[in-house]
Protein backbone atom coordinates (compact mmCIF):
# COMPACT_ATOMS: atom_id res chain seq x y z
CA UNK A 1 0.00 0.00 0.00
CA UNK A 2 2.99 2.30 -0.35
CA UNK A 3 2.31 4.63 -3.28
CA UNK A 4 5.58 6.49 -3.09
CA UNK A 5 8.26 5.56 -5.60
CA UNK A 6 11.67 7.12 -6.15
CA UNK A 7 11.62 7.71 -9.88
CA UNK A 8 9.28 7.87 -12.84
CA UNK A 9 10.98 4.82 -14.33
CA UNK A 10 10.20 2.82 -11.21
CA UNK A 11 6.57 3.93 -11.34
CA UNK A 12 6.24 3.09 -15.03
CA UNK A 13 7.77 -0.33 -14.58
CA UNK A 14 5.50 -1.04 -11.61
CA UNK A 15 2.56 0.11 -13.73
CA UNK A 16 3.50 -2.43 -16.38
CA UNK A 17 4.48 -0.03 -19.14
CA UNK A 18 4.48 -1.94 -22.42
CA UNK A 19 4.28 -1.60 -26.19
CA UNK A 20 0.88 -0.67 -27.57
CA UNK A 21 -0.39 0.94 -24.37
CA UNK A 22 -2.89 3.78 -24.36
CA UNK A 23 -1.56 6.57 -22.16
CA UNK A 24 -3.22 9.81 -21.06
CA UNK A 25 -0.71 12.60 -20.49
CA UNK A 26 -1.70 15.78 -18.65
CA UNK A 27 -0.76 19.27 -19.74
CA UNK A 28 -1.80 22.10 -22.03
CA UNK A 29 0.96 23.00 -24.44
CA UNK A 30 4.09 22.62 -22.33
CA UNK A 31 2.27 23.79 -19.18
CA UNK A 32 1.68 21.18 -16.48
CA UNK A 33 3.21 18.26 -18.38
CA UNK A 34 4.63 15.20 -16.59
CA UNK A 35 8.23 15.86 -17.66
CA UNK A 36 9.79 13.08 -15.65
CA UNK A 37 7.37 10.42 -16.88
CA UNK A 38 7.76 11.47 -20.50
CA UNK A 39 11.55 11.31 -20.22
CA UNK A 40 11.32 7.89 -18.58
CA UNK A 41 9.00 6.55 -21.29
CA UNK A 42 11.56 7.67 -23.83
CA UNK A 43 14.35 5.99 -21.91
CA UNK A 44 12.36 2.77 -21.50
CA UNK A 45 11.83 2.67 -25.26
CA UNK A 46 8.30 1.22 -25.48
CA UNK A 47 6.65 1.61 -28.89
CA UNK A 48 3.29 1.83 -30.66
CA UNK A 49 1.82 4.04 -27.99
CA UNK A 50 -1.55 5.74 -28.29
CA UNK A 51 -1.25 9.05 -26.46
CA UNK A 52 -4.29 11.01 -25.32
CA UNK A 53 -3.14 14.54 -24.62
CA UNK A 54 -4.44 17.96 -25.60
CA UNK A 55 -1.26 18.71 -27.55
CA UNK A 56 1.93 16.93 -28.59
CA UNK A 57 4.70 19.16 -27.30
CA UNK A 58 7.38 20.72 -29.48
CA UNK A 59 10.23 19.14 -31.42
CA UNK A 60 12.62 18.78 -28.54
CA UNK A 61 10.39 18.98 -25.48
CA UNK A 62 7.24 17.51 -24.01
CA UNK A 63 5.60 14.64 -25.88
CA UNK A 64 7.53 15.76 -28.96
CA UNK A 65 10.55 13.83 -27.72
CA UNK A 66 8.58 10.59 -28.14
CA UNK A 67 7.97 11.47 -31.78
CA UNK A 68 11.68 11.75 -32.47
CA UNK A 69 12.09 8.19 -31.24
CA UNK A 70 9.01 7.00 -33.15
CA UNK A 71 7.37 5.64 -30.02
CA UNK A 72 3.94 7.14 -30.75
CA UNK A 73 1.58 5.42 -33.17
CA UNK A 74 -1.47 7.56 -32.56
CA UNK A 75 -2.33 10.91 -30.96
CA UNK A 76 -5.78 11.84 -29.60
CA UNK A 77 -5.64 15.62 -29.21
CA UNK A 78 -7.45 18.87 -29.83
CA UNK A 79 -4.50 20.75 -31.32
CA UNK A 80 -1.22 19.40 -32.64
CA UNK A 81 1.54 20.10 -35.07
CA UNK A 82 3.58 22.72 -33.28
CA UNK A 83 6.63 20.83 -34.47
CA UNK A 84 8.20 19.77 -37.73
CA UNK A 85 8.70 16.10 -36.94
CA UNK A 86 5.02 15.73 -36.12
CA UNK A 87 4.11 17.19 -39.49
CA UNK A 88 6.57 14.97 -41.30
CA UNK A 89 5.34 11.76 -39.67
CA UNK A 90 1.71 12.71 -40.10
CA UNK A 91 2.06 13.57 -43.80
CA UNK A 92 4.07 10.39 -44.35
CA UNK A 93 1.22 8.37 -42.82
CA UNK A 94 3.44 7.12 -40.01
CA UNK A 95 1.40 8.80 -37.30
CA UNK A 96 -2.34 8.51 -36.79
CA UNK A 97 -4.15 11.57 -35.42
CA UNK A 98 -7.62 11.73 -33.91
CA UNK A 99 -8.67 15.35 -33.49
CA UNK A 100 -11.28 16.01 -30.80
CA UNK A 101 -12.71 19.39 -29.81
CA UNK A 102 -11.01 20.47 -26.60
CA UNK A 103 -14.18 20.61 -24.52
CA UNK A 104 -15.33 17.26 -25.83
CA UNK A 105 -11.92 15.76 -25.07
CA UNK A 106 -12.01 17.11 -21.52
CA UNK A 107 -15.55 15.86 -20.97
CA UNK A 108 -14.89 12.45 -22.51
CA UNK A 109 -12.01 11.93 -20.09
CA UNK A 110 -14.05 13.21 -17.16
CA UNK A 111 -16.87 10.83 -18.21
CA UNK A 112 -14.47 7.91 -18.54
CA UNK A 113 -13.24 8.43 -15.00
CA UNK A 114 -16.75 8.95 -13.66
CA UNK A 115 -18.40 5.82 -15.07
CA UNK A 116 -20.39 7.64 -17.76
CA UNK A 117 -20.11 5.61 -20.99
CA UNK A 118 -21.59 8.33 -23.21
CA UNK A 119 -23.10 11.82 -23.16
CA UNK A 120 -24.49 14.39 -25.54
CA UNK A 121 -22.88 17.70 -26.45
CA UNK A 122 -23.80 20.47 -28.89
CA UNK A 123 -20.16 20.78 -29.93
CA UNK A 124 -19.42 19.67 -33.47
CA UNK A 125 -22.97 19.16 -34.71
CA UNK A 126 -22.99 19.83 -38.45
CA UNK A 127 -19.21 19.44 -38.72
CA UNK A 128 -16.86 16.59 -39.60
CA UNK A 129 -16.57 15.91 -35.88
CA UNK A 130 -20.12 14.55 -35.80
CA UNK A 131 -19.83 12.37 -38.88
CA UNK A 132 -20.87 8.79 -38.20
CA UNK A 133 -22.06 9.62 -34.71
CA UNK A 134 -25.56 9.66 -33.29
CA UNK A 135 -27.22 13.07 -33.59
CA UNK A 136 -30.20 13.68 -31.36
CA UNK A 137 -32.72 16.38 -30.62
CA UNK A 138 -33.22 17.43 -27.02
CA UNK A 139 -35.74 20.19 -26.46
CA UNK A 140 -35.40 21.43 -30.03
CA UNK A 141 -31.62 21.57 -30.21
CA UNK A 142 -29.32 19.06 -31.88
CA UNK A 143 -26.58 17.25 -29.99
CA UNK A 144 -23.99 14.63 -30.85
CA UNK A 145 -23.31 11.59 -28.70
CA UNK A 146 -19.73 11.25 -27.53
CA UNK A 147 -18.17 8.34 -25.63
CA UNK A 148 -16.32 8.31 -22.33
CA UNK A 149 -12.60 7.80 -22.70
CA UNK A 150 -10.28 5.72 -20.53
CA UNK A 151 -6.65 4.71 -20.80
CA UNK A 152 -4.41 1.92 -19.58
CA UNK A 153 -2.26 4.46 -17.82
CA UNK A 154 -2.38 8.13 -16.99
CA UNK A 155 0.67 10.25 -16.27
CA UNK A 156 -0.15 13.38 -14.35
CA UNK A 157 1.78 16.38 -13.09
CA UNK A 158 0.81 18.17 -9.89
CA UNK A 159 2.52 20.84 -7.87
CA UNK A 160 2.35 19.27 -4.41
CA UNK A 161 1.33 15.79 -3.38
CA UNK A 162 1.34 13.75 -0.18
CA UNK A 163 2.28 10.16 0.52
CA UNK A 164 -1.39 9.11 0.25
CA UNK A 165 -1.54 10.44 -3.30
CA UNK A 166 -3.55 13.59 -2.55
CA UNK A 167 -2.56 16.32 -5.01
CA UNK A 168 -2.83 20.05 -5.53
CA UNK A 169 -2.22 21.71 -8.88
CA UNK A 170 -0.89 25.20 -9.46
CA UNK A 171 -2.51 27.87 -11.67
CA UNK A 172 -3.18 26.88 -15.29
CA UNK A 173 -0.91 23.85 -14.92
CA UNK A 174 -4.05 22.11 -13.65
CA UNK A 175 -5.76 21.82 -17.07
CA UNK A 176 -6.32 18.16 -18.09
CA UNK A 177 -4.45 16.64 -15.17
CA UNK A 178 -7.33 16.14 -12.69
CA UNK A 179 -9.62 14.30 -15.11
CA UNK A 180 -6.82 12.16 -16.46
CA UNK A 181 -5.97 11.08 -12.91
CA UNK A 182 -9.46 9.55 -12.72
CA UNK A 183 -9.53 7.86 -16.14
CA UNK A 184 -6.45 5.66 -16.23
CA UNK A 185 -6.55 2.03 -15.10
CA UNK A 186 -3.31 2.97 -13.39
CA UNK A 187 -2.38 6.52 -12.48
CA UNK A 188 1.11 7.89 -11.85
CA UNK A 189 1.47 11.40 -10.46
CA UNK A 190 4.74 13.31 -10.39
CA UNK A 191 4.96 16.36 -8.18
CA UNK A 192 7.42 19.12 -7.60
CA UNK A 193 7.11 18.70 -3.88
CA UNK A 194 6.14 15.53 -2.02
CA UNK A 195 5.05 15.95 1.60
CA UNK A 196 4.05 13.54 4.36
CA UNK A 197 0.38 12.62 4.63
CA UNK A 198 -1.46 15.16 6.75
CA UNK A 199 0.39 18.24 5.50
CA UNK A 200 -2.30 19.27 3.00
CA UNK A 201 -5.59 21.00 3.83
CA UNK A 202 -8.35 18.44 3.20
CA UNK A 203 -10.60 21.16 1.75
CA UNK A 204 -8.01 22.09 -0.85
CA UNK A 205 -7.15 18.72 -2.38
CA UNK A 206 -7.76 18.79 -6.13
CA UNK A 207 -7.12 15.09 -6.75
CA UNK A 208 -7.92 12.75 -3.84
CA UNK A 209 -5.43 9.93 -3.34
CA UNK A 210 -7.98 7.26 -4.26
CA UNK A 211 -7.19 7.95 -7.91
CA UNK A 212 -3.42 7.71 -7.53
CA UNK A 213 -1.49 4.43 -7.67
CA UNK A 214 2.07 5.80 -7.68
CA UNK A 215 3.43 9.18 -6.67
CA UNK A 216 6.95 10.52 -6.99
CA UNK A 217 8.81 13.73 -6.46
CA UNK A 218 10.14 14.67 -9.87
CA UNK A 219 13.48 16.27 -10.51
CA UNK A 220 15.12 18.69 -12.92
CA UNK A 221 11.90 20.37 -13.99
CA UNK A 222 12.60 22.56 -16.97
CA UNK A 223 9.06 23.96 -17.26
CA UNK A 224 9.77 25.49 -20.62
CA UNK A 225 7.70 28.47 -21.77
CA UNK A 226 6.28 28.22 -25.28
CA UNK A 227 5.31 31.85 -25.90
CA UNK A 228 7.19 34.21 -23.64
CA UNK A 229 5.13 37.40 -23.77
CA UNK A 230 5.87 40.49 -21.69
CA UNK A 231 4.59 43.96 -21.18
CA UNK A 232 7.16 46.74 -21.38
CA UNK A 233 8.89 47.64 -18.14
CA UNK A 234 7.23 50.64 -16.56
CA UNK A 235 3.83 50.01 -18.19
CA UNK A 236 0.75 49.49 -16.08
Amino acid at each position, binding site marked *: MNKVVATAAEALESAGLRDGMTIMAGGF*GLCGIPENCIAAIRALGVRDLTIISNNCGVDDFGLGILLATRQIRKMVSSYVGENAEFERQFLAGELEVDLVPQ*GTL*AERIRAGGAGIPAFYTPTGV*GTVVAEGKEIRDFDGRMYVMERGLRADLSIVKADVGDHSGNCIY*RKTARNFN*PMMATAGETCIVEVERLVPTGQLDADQIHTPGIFVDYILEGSNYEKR*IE*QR*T*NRPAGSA
Partner: protein
Amino acid sequence: MKSVSSRERIVLRAARELQDGFYVNLGIGMPTQVANHIPAGMNIVLESENGMLGIGPFPYEGEEDADLINAGKQTITELPGSSYFSSADSFGMIRGGHIDLTIMGAMEISQEGDLANWMIPGKLVKGMGGGMDLVVSARRVVMIMTHCDKKGNPKLLPQCTLPLTGKRCVHRVITEHAVFDFEDGKMILKERWPETSAEELRKITAAEYTEADSVVEMVI
Protein backbone atom coordinates in the same frame (compact mmCIF):
# COMPACT_ATOMS: atom_id res chain seq x y z
CA MET B 1 -12.08 59.72 -37.31
CA LYS B 2 -8.90 58.14 -36.08
CA SER B 3 -6.36 57.05 -38.63
CA VAL B 4 -5.98 53.37 -37.92
CA SER B 5 -5.27 50.24 -39.91
CA SER B 6 -8.05 47.89 -41.00
CA ARG B 7 -7.13 45.44 -38.30
CA GLU B 8 -7.01 48.13 -35.62
CA ARG B 9 -10.40 49.33 -36.79
CA ILE B 10 -11.82 45.83 -36.40
CA VAL B 11 -10.34 45.42 -32.94
CA LEU B 12 -11.60 48.84 -31.79
CA ARG B 13 -15.09 48.13 -33.09
CA ALA B 14 -15.03 44.71 -31.44
CA ALA B 15 -14.17 46.33 -28.10
CA ARG B 16 -17.54 48.09 -28.30
CA GLU B 17 -19.21 44.69 -27.93
CA LEU B 18 -18.06 44.56 -24.32
CA GLN B 19 -20.59 45.34 -21.59
CA ASP B 20 -20.03 45.94 -17.92
CA GLY B 21 -20.03 42.70 -15.96
CA PHE B 22 -19.40 40.47 -18.96
CA TYR B 23 -17.40 37.27 -18.72
CA VAL B 24 -15.60 37.11 -22.04
CA ASN B 25 -13.49 34.60 -23.94
CA LEU B 26 -11.18 36.12 -26.56
CA GLY B 27 -9.77 33.94 -29.31
CA ILE B 28 -6.10 33.69 -30.21
CA GLY B 29 -4.56 36.43 -32.40
CA MET B 30 -6.48 39.61 -33.28
CA PRO B 31 -9.26 38.96 -30.72
CA THR B 32 -6.68 38.91 -27.90
CA GLN B 33 -5.94 42.57 -28.71
CA VAL B 34 -9.50 43.51 -27.77
CA ALA B 35 -8.32 43.20 -24.16
CA ASN B 36 -6.19 46.32 -24.68
CA HIS B 37 -9.30 48.39 -25.34
CA ILE B 38 -11.56 47.64 -22.40
CA PRO B 39 -13.12 51.02 -21.49
CA ALA B 40 -11.87 52.45 -18.22
CA GLY B 41 -14.19 51.63 -15.35
CA MET B 42 -15.80 48.73 -17.14
CA ASN B 43 -15.64 45.45 -15.27
CA ILE B 44 -14.77 42.65 -17.70
CA VAL B 45 -13.55 39.22 -16.62
CA LEU B 46 -11.57 37.38 -19.27
CA GLU B 47 -11.75 33.60 -19.38
CA SER B 48 -9.06 31.36 -20.76
CA GLU B 49 -10.37 27.95 -21.76
CA ASN B 50 -7.29 26.20 -20.41
CA GLY B 51 -8.72 26.87 -16.97
CA MET B 52 -8.72 30.43 -15.69
CA LEU B 53 -11.02 33.35 -15.04
CA GLY B 54 -9.53 36.80 -14.63
CA ILE B 55 -6.65 37.02 -17.11
CA GLY B 56 -4.31 39.88 -16.23
CA PRO B 57 -1.78 41.67 -18.45
CA PHE B 58 1.37 40.03 -19.76
CA PRO B 59 4.06 39.77 -17.06
CA TYR B 60 7.05 42.06 -16.83
CA GLU B 61 10.24 40.51 -18.10
CA GLY B 62 11.62 38.11 -15.51
CA GLU B 63 8.22 37.64 -13.90
CA GLU B 64 6.91 34.99 -16.30
CA ASP B 65 5.45 31.90 -14.65
CA ALA B 66 5.54 28.68 -16.67
CA ASP B 67 2.44 27.53 -14.78
CA LEU B 68 0.43 30.54 -15.92
CA ILE B 69 -0.44 30.76 -19.60
CA ASN B 70 -3.46 31.58 -21.72
CA ALA B 71 -5.01 29.38 -24.40
CA GLY B 72 -2.53 30.82 -26.90
CA LYS B 73 0.24 29.52 -24.62
CA GLN B 74 1.37 33.07 -23.87
CA THR B 75 2.60 33.95 -20.40
CA ILE B 76 0.02 36.01 -18.50
CA THR B 77 -0.66 37.20 -14.96
CA GLU B 78 -3.53 36.86 -12.53
CA LEU B 79 -5.70 39.59 -11.02
CA PRO B 80 -7.51 40.00 -7.72
CA GLY B 81 -10.54 37.72 -8.04
CA SER B 82 -8.95 35.31 -10.49
CA SER B 83 -9.68 31.59 -10.21
CA TYR B 84 -8.25 28.41 -11.72
CA PHE B 85 -10.07 25.21 -12.63
CA SER B 86 -9.69 22.09 -14.73
CA SER B 87 -10.32 21.87 -18.46
CA ALA B 88 -13.47 19.83 -17.80
CA ASP B 89 -14.80 22.53 -15.50
CA SER B 90 -13.73 25.20 -17.98
CA PHE B 91 -15.69 23.69 -20.82
CA GLY B 92 -18.56 22.89 -18.50
CA MET B 93 -18.66 26.63 -17.89
CA ILE B 94 -18.52 27.31 -21.62
CA ARG B 95 -21.02 24.65 -22.74
CA GLY B 96 -23.31 25.53 -19.86
CA GLY B 97 -23.84 28.99 -21.33
CA HIS B 98 -22.00 30.93 -18.64
CA ILE B 99 -19.70 32.88 -21.00
CA ASP B 100 -21.48 36.09 -21.99
CA LEU B 101 -19.44 36.75 -25.11
CA THR B 102 -16.76 35.18 -27.23
CA ILE B 103 -14.88 37.12 -29.87
CA MET B 104 -12.99 34.97 -32.35
CA GLY B 105 -11.31 35.22 -35.70
CA ALA B 106 -12.98 33.68 -38.77
CA MET B 107 -11.84 32.43 -42.16
CA GLU B 108 -15.26 32.18 -43.78
CA ILE B 109 -18.82 32.87 -42.68
CA SER B 110 -21.90 31.89 -44.64
CA GLN B 111 -25.00 34.02 -45.05
CA GLU B 112 -26.79 31.66 -42.67
CA GLY B 113 -24.20 32.21 -39.96
CA ASP B 114 -22.15 29.06 -40.47
CA LEU B 115 -18.55 29.45 -39.43
CA ALA B 116 -15.31 28.02 -40.78
CA ASN B 117 -12.14 28.91 -38.97
CA TRP B 118 -10.13 25.82 -38.15
CA MET B 119 -9.03 23.94 -41.21
CA ILE B 120 -7.61 24.87 -44.59
CA PRO B 121 -7.65 21.98 -47.04
CA GLY B 122 -4.22 21.33 -48.45
CA LYS B 123 -2.57 22.72 -45.37
CA LEU B 124 -1.77 20.59 -42.36
CA VAL B 125 -4.75 20.24 -40.06
CA LYS B 126 -3.65 21.32 -36.62
CA GLY B 127 -6.94 20.87 -34.83
CA MET B 128 -9.92 22.82 -33.64
CA GLY B 129 -8.76 23.35 -30.06
CA GLY B 130 -11.62 24.81 -28.05
CA GLY B 131 -13.21 26.81 -30.86
CA MET B 132 -15.99 24.37 -31.70
CA ASP B 133 -17.14 24.35 -28.09
CA LEU B 134 -17.08 28.11 -27.74
CA VAL B 135 -19.02 28.97 -30.89
CA VAL B 136 -21.97 26.75 -30.05
CA SER B 137 -22.19 27.68 -26.39
CA ALA B 138 -21.22 31.26 -25.62
CA ARG B 139 -24.31 33.44 -25.13
CA ARG B 140 -23.06 35.77 -27.79
CA VAL B 141 -20.70 34.77 -30.61
CA VAL B 142 -18.98 37.65 -32.38
CA MET B 143 -16.57 36.99 -35.22
CA ILE B 144 -13.95 39.42 -36.41
CA MET B 145 -12.07 39.20 -39.69
CA THR B 146 -10.86 41.26 -42.61
CA HIS B 147 -13.66 41.52 -45.14
CA CYS B 148 -11.68 39.75 -47.89
CA ASP B 149 -8.69 37.43 -47.96
CA LYS B 150 -5.22 38.48 -49.07
CA LYS B 151 -6.14 37.90 -52.71
CA GLY B 152 -9.22 40.09 -52.37
CA ASN B 153 -11.71 37.22 -52.36
CA PRO B 154 -14.83 37.66 -50.19
CA LYS B 155 -14.95 35.71 -46.93
CA LEU B 156 -18.67 36.34 -46.41
CA LEU B 157 -20.12 33.70 -48.69
CA PRO B 158 -23.41 32.06 -49.70
CA GLN B 159 -21.93 28.87 -48.25
CA CYS B 160 -18.66 28.10 -46.55
CA THR B 161 -16.17 26.28 -48.74
CA LEU B 162 -13.97 25.24 -45.82
CA PRO B 163 -14.94 22.57 -43.27
CA LEU B 164 -17.28 24.05 -40.67
CA THR B 165 -16.49 24.92 -37.08
CA GLY B 166 -20.16 25.37 -36.30
CA LYS B 167 -23.49 25.63 -38.07
CA ARG B 168 -25.61 28.80 -37.74
CA CYS B 169 -23.59 29.72 -34.69
CA VAL B 170 -22.46 33.28 -35.47
CA HIS B 171 -24.50 36.12 -33.98
CA ARG B 172 -22.45 38.98 -35.40
CA VAL B 173 -19.48 39.52 -37.67
CA ILE B 174 -17.32 42.63 -37.63
CA THR B 175 -15.03 43.50 -40.55
CA GLU B 176 -13.22 46.72 -41.41
CA HIS B 177 -16.16 47.64 -43.64
CA ALA B 178 -19.28 46.56 -41.84
CA VAL B 179 -21.13 44.85 -39.03
CA PHE B 180 -23.64 42.14 -39.91
CA ASP B 181 -25.97 40.21 -37.64
CA PHE B 182 -27.42 36.76 -38.24
CA GLU B 183 -31.04 36.25 -37.29
CA ASP B 184 -32.93 33.05 -38.06
CA GLY B 185 -30.45 32.12 -40.75
CA LYS B 186 -30.60 35.54 -42.43
CA MET B 187 -27.72 37.99 -42.69
CA ILE B 188 -28.54 41.62 -41.96
CA LEU B 189 -26.33 44.67 -42.43
CA LYS B 190 -26.35 46.71 -39.23
CA GLU B 191 -23.43 49.11 -39.56
CA ARG B 192 -21.36 50.35 -42.49
CA TRP B 193 -17.98 52.06 -42.35
CA PRO B 194 -18.60 55.65 -43.57
CA GLU B 195 -15.87 55.48 -46.23
CA THR B 196 -17.33 52.29 -47.69
CA SER B 197 -20.28 52.84 -49.99
CA ALA B 198 -23.30 50.54 -50.03
CA GLU B 199 -22.38 49.49 -53.58
CA GLU B 200 -18.77 48.80 -52.72
CA LEU B 201 -19.91 46.66 -49.79
CA ARG B 202 -22.20 44.60 -52.05
CA LYS B 203 -19.28 44.04 -54.40
CA ILE B 204 -16.94 42.63 -51.78
CA THR B 205 -19.62 40.57 -50.05
CA ALA B 206 -20.55 37.34 -51.82
CA ALA B 207 -23.11 36.45 -49.17
CA GLU B 208 -26.69 37.58 -49.64
CA TYR B 209 -27.83 40.06 -47.03
CA THR B 210 -30.56 42.54 -46.35
CA GLU B 211 -30.10 45.96 -44.84
CA ALA B 212 -31.52 46.68 -41.42
CA ASP B 213 -34.27 49.30 -41.28
CA SER B 214 -31.68 51.78 -40.17
CA VAL B 215 -28.12 50.93 -41.08
CA VAL B 216 -25.95 53.11 -38.91
CA GLU B 217 -22.44 54.35 -39.33
CA MET B 218 -19.81 52.00 -37.96
CA VAL B 219 -18.08 53.81 -35.11
CA ILE B 220 -14.82 52.86 -33.44
